[in-house]
Every structure is written in structure tokens, then in C-alpha cells.
């Protein structure tokens, strides 16, 4: 290494476009580091897939293929029609057809079936006469959630079946007695509501953590000291650290929505471009908040804890877990301050209702305002010295 033999070739320094060059330098560095960090990269892909499978399949308050039996005391067209309609909902799987009350009771008692329908003698005739006969439903209520939602959907399903198969014209009222809740879709699929919500929660969690760690990691590894001794400005550091993760967030959103549409049959009624645009806004907002966290804390552990502090209320108060309208006023005010609240409205409205920009102006503005607020705090909080 003799400098005398090879004098350093002078490379010129140019001041033009300094902001872009320095931001770009930071961005390239972050990208390389992200690519090297295999575990984080695996998390980016695995997290949404795992959560979707859990929420979409495992955690499902509406039952599927409930083992069921029918006590058939009358073999009429109406009875057959009702059974077929029930089976079509995929809620019930009729394993047994019995004609004796004792057999029916035993099936339920032994747990071989969780659900039973009894069609009494003279049912069809009573319906046609308008007597409102009772369709007896017996459910194993040891799992009350599954039972109640199965019962809840029953009335609607049966009524639809009757409308299609037997009646000419609308029945004046429910032709028989079952308590039925008004449901939006006959199968009441929870995935319709959960998948768009998951886009928001997963993005919040990953985006928050990635940037929350980014600055503290530089401090802990000692690289911050030499970074600060170089001519880079806080805004440039922030841009360089945020931009790569916008793409990461975009990839995640694409993955979740893709699985939601492809696997869970969630409709995408609205404009895909609008969804992408507003998702990018939401991703950037979360990255800014994560970055702000990283300028407030001392080490990576604190960064994780603070991210969780932000993430939990986001889940609880945004309308992801509990209906927003059902919360007390103070909780609603808190919720309005969280980006997830606004994004949930946006993503549900676009996917399920086909909403346009006109409908979403307020939530878009709210997201943009939160993003600018976070960025301002981050840039002013970023320490330019080690004092």
C-alpha cells in the first residue's frame, strides 16, 4: 500500500443536485442492507401470508361444515329444498338423516353432530296455508359462537330457498318461526371484512418496526458517528431510509390483496390504481411514524416497545377488531388520530363498495396530515451532533 507509487487520482466533487445524490447514496445503502438481512426479508413475505391464513382460516367465528343431522318426519319437496339450501351455504354438512326422535337426540348428545334440523309432520302444508309452523333447530351450544352464528344465518338461507323453489311472488312475512339476524351475505364470510383490515394492520406493524429500528441500529452499531461526520442532512437520511421500504410495503400490500382476492374470494370492486395510490400514502405515513419513533428512543429494544405501544391502540381503536361506531366518543377521537383508522375505511370502501376518490377525501387528507406531522417531528428531532 504505497501511496508514493500511486498518487490518488483526483475525483471531482460537484455540489449540484447534492440533495438527490446524498439521498440516493443513503437509499442504495439501505437497499443493500435490506437484501443482506435475509431474516427480515423472509418476515416481509411470511408475515402477511401467515396472518392471512390464521385470520382467514383458523380464526373464523363463522363455522364451516358443521356436522349436522336432520330429523325428517315428512318427506316433502319443501323439506328437501330446505336441506339442499342449508347444505349449499357450506355451513352444514348433513351426515345423518333420521326418522326417530331418540336417534336424533343421541346424535347430538354424543357429539357426532353439532347441529340438527327437525322438519315436523305436515310442515309443507302448514306453510302453504300460512300457519307459520315451527322449523325446529337444535344446536350443540357448547360452542356458543359457532352455534349462534349458524342459527343466525339459518332463517335467511331457508327463506331464500323457499323464495326460489316454491313460492310464486313474495311471501308476506317469514313463513315459519326462526330467529334470524339480518345478514349482508348468506354465508356471512368474515374474511370479507378481515382481509382488507389485515392489509392495514400488517402494513402498520412491519412498516413501523422497520423504520423504528433503522436509526437506532446505526447508533448501536456505531455507524451513526461516522455518518454524522459526513455532509448529509437529516432530511436526506430520512428519505434514503424511507423510500426502500415504500417498495417493501407495496410488495406486502400486493401479496395480501392478491391472496385475499385469489384465495378468499374477496371482491375488488373499486379502482385498483386508486387503491395502490392511497396504499402508498398509508405506507409512507407509517414509515414516517416509525422513523419518528427511532429518533425518540435510545436503543432497538425501546424502539420495539414503542412500536408496540403504537400498534396496539391501532388494532383496538381503528375499527379492525371492534366496530368503530360502537366505541365511546373519546375512543373515537383517539381512533381518528391513528392512520390505520383512515386506511381501514379507505381499503374496505374501495374493495367492498367500489368507492371513488370523491368518497374518500377526508380520510386521504387525514393520512397526508399525519404523515407530514410525523416527518416534521422526525426531522427536527434528528440529532446532528452527539451532544
Amino acid at each position: 500500500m504505497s501511496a508514493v507509487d500511486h498518487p490518488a487520482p483526483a475525483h471531482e466533487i460537484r455540489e449540484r443536485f447534492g440533495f438527490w445524490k446524498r439521498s440516493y447514496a443513503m437509499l442504495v445503502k439501505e437497499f443493500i442492507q435490506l437484501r443482506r438481512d435475509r431474516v427480515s426479508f423472509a418476515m416481509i413475505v411470511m408475515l402477511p401470508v401467515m396472518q392471512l391464513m390464521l385470520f382467514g382460516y383458523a380464526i373464523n367465528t363463522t363455522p364451516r361444515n358443521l356436522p349436522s343431522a336432520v330429523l325428517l318426519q315428512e318427506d316433502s319437496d319443501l323439506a328437501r329444498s330446505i336441506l339442499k339450501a342449508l347444505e349449499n351455504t357450506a355451513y352444514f354438512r348433513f351426515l345423518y338423516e333420521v326418522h326417530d326422535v331418540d336417534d336424533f337426540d343421541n346424535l347430538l348428545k354424543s357429539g357426532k353432530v353439532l347441529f340438527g334440523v327437525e322438519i315436523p309432520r305436515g310442515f309443507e302444508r302448514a306453510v302453504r296455508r300460512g300457519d307459520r309452523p315451527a322449523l325446529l333447530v337444535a344446536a350443540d351450544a357448547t360452542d356458543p359462537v359457532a352455534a349462534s352464528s349458524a342459527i343466525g344465518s339459518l332463517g335467511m338461507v331457508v327463506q331464500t330457498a323457499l323464495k326460489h323453489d316454491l313460492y310464486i311472488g313474495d311471501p308476506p312475512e317469514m313463513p315459519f318461526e326462526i330467529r334470524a339476524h339480518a345478514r349482508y351475505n348468506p354465508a356471512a364470510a368474515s374474511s370479507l371484512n378481515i382481509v382488507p383490515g389485515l392489509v392495514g394492520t400488517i402494513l402498520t406493524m412491519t412498516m413501523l418496526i422497520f423504520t423504528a429500528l433503522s436509526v437506532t441500529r446505526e447508533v448501536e452499531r456505531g455507524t451513526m458517528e461516522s455518518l454524522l461526520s459526513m455532509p448529509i442532512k437529516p432530511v436526506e437520511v430520512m428519505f434514503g431510509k424511507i423510500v426502500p421500504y415504500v417498495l417493501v410495503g407495496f410488495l406486502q400490500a400486493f401479496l395480501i390483496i392478491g391472496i385475499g382476492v385469489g384465495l378468499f374470494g374477496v371482491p375488488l370492486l373499486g379502482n385498483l390504481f386508486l387503491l395502490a395510490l392511497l396504499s402508498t400514502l398509508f405506507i409512507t405515513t407509517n414509515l414516517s411514524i416509525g422513523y419518528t419513533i427511532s429518533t425518540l428512543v435510545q436503543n432497538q429494544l425501546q424502539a420495539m416497545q414503542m412500536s408496540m405501544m403504537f400498534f396496539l391502540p391501532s388494532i383496538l381503536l381503528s375499527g379492525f377488531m371492534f366496530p368503530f361506531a360502537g366505541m365511546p366518543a373519546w375512543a373515537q377521537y383517539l381512533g381518528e388520530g391513528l392512520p390505520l383508522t383512515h386506511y381501514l375505511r379507505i381499503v374496505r370502501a374501495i374493495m367492498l363498495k367500489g368507492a371513488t376518490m370523491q368518497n374518500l377525501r377526508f380520510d386521504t387528507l387525514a393520512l397526508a396530515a399525519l404523515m407530514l406531522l410525523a416527518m416534521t417531528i422526525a426531522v427536527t428531532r434528528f440529532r446532528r451532533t452527539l451532544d
Partner: protein
Amino acid sequence: MSGGNGIAIDVKGLTKSFGGREVVHDLSMQVRRGSIYGFLGPNGSGKTTTIRILCGLLTPDSGEGTCLGYDIRRDAEKIKRQVGYMTQRFSLYQDLSVRENLEFVARLYGLTDARGAARDMIKRLGLSGREEQLAGELSGGWKQRLALGACTLPNPQLLLLDEPTAGVDPKARRDFWNEIHALAADGLTVLVSTHYMDEAERCHEIAYIAYGHLLTHGTVEQVIAKSALTTYTVTGEDLNEIAAALTGKPGIDMVAPFGTSLHVSGRDVAALEASIGPWRERSGLHWQKSSPSLEDVFIELMSRSKDNFQ
């Protein structure tokens, strides 16, 4: 932009405290352009803090001065463009390759051809063939060399090196110093902190700092002359016995074994000679009056400053 008179660093009365503890006290120093200035002192003496103040990473509580002609308080951004700072702890990105680290630095400083500059530096450092190796996987010596390369990449006028050779083997240390001398010959000013006496002797000028106070400065010869220390070197048998007997006697400030010889030093020549008098006649011992080594001077300064400031 220059300090005009060939002075790269000119600071007066720098003071800095952390949590009520004064780390740097009323420190003034001048460093000539193109010189290698050694910064010596025990651990925690304020060397790193002073270096950080000089490159704008810390703001002094009081005091003022210029670095490359720029005010250290107001023009930190301008100073950063002209200064290469090599931190005590390896502070390049361990998960970036040699090439990627250098390109990152080149881009940050706005070099027109970042790739070309990185390529040239790799060649210059003798790292060809290792450019795709991750910086974290390099050996200690190569890491230091790479860090120095990253510092000098944007052609700075001043290098601040904070214990650059700590934990590096002698061969790598010598190469490193050859490189520093070559850079200084090209007109670069280098301020380097170190614990090693042999490195101190390679500097054009040195300063000794302890407990935040600058105790002495000048060339190695000046520092030794200023110490007014008289040293006798003893060789012979039973040196341990003599060392034990002499320690603490009037006029004897320091007794230090050096291999097969013993250095006995003191500032008061008369008292020193009176105390060693009885031993000088003893057979089997050879006494010789010699000048103190730099290490003698520093250890004496350190023990004295401990009494004054601690």
C-alpha cells in the same frame, strides 16, 4: 477558506462537560498544515471528545477556534466536507461489502464518479480481489486500512484519526503509518490519537492530555527537554531489590524496569543523586546517567496530573 498562515487547527479554551463532569478543560492547541500531530493521554483523558469537537460532532460549552479556517461553532457543515474522521470503533457498515462501503461514502460526498473513485481506492489499498467481501468479515488490520481509505476518499484536507491502530498487529501498524506519512507528504494534515510510544515518536509534534488538561506539547525532543527529568539507567543483578528499596525515596519520582535494566528518574537532580548514592558503589551494578524516554516523561506527567486534578 484557508487559515492563511499555514495553520490547520487553531482552538482556544475549549471546555466540554458531560453530566456535570468536565471532560475537556480549557484546551488550546495549534496544528500546522501538512504536519502529523500526535495526541496522547490515558484512557478517558478527553482525546476522543476533543477530536469530536474539532469535526463538529460535539459543540463545546465554551471556547472557540477554527478548523481549516472555518469556525468550529458556525461552520460545522463546511468542516465536514473537508475533514475525514476515522472513529475509534470500526464504523463502516459491516453488512456492506468493501466496494459498497466506499461507493456509499463517495456518493455522500458527491464525487462525480463514485464507482470509479471506489475502484481506484480499492486498488490503492491493495484490496483488489476482496472488493466483494463484507467489511465485517475483514481482519482487524484490513478493517483499519479500509476505514482509512474511506476517510481519504473525498480528498479531505484534514484527517482526524482516533486510535486508528488499537489492536492491530505490528506489520499492519507499520504499513498504516507509512500510509499516513505518505498522505502528509501530499499536504494533508493529520491529527492522530494513540497509546503507543513508538507511534508518538513518528509524529512531527505531540501533545499530552490527561484528565481534560493539555499538559505538554511540542516535538518529541522539546517534550523530553521540557520535562526536566533526570534518569539513571541501572543494569546488573538484584534489580528487583534495588527497585523496592528506591521507590518512594526523596528525589526519586519514578522507578520503572525496562527488560534487564531499571530506569530511576526524578526532577530534583541533587536529591535524586543523594538517594541513589549508597547504591552506586555497590559491586555488580552499572549506573549510567541517560536522558529519559518519552514513556518516562508521560508516566511522570500522568502521576503528577493525577495528584493535581483527581
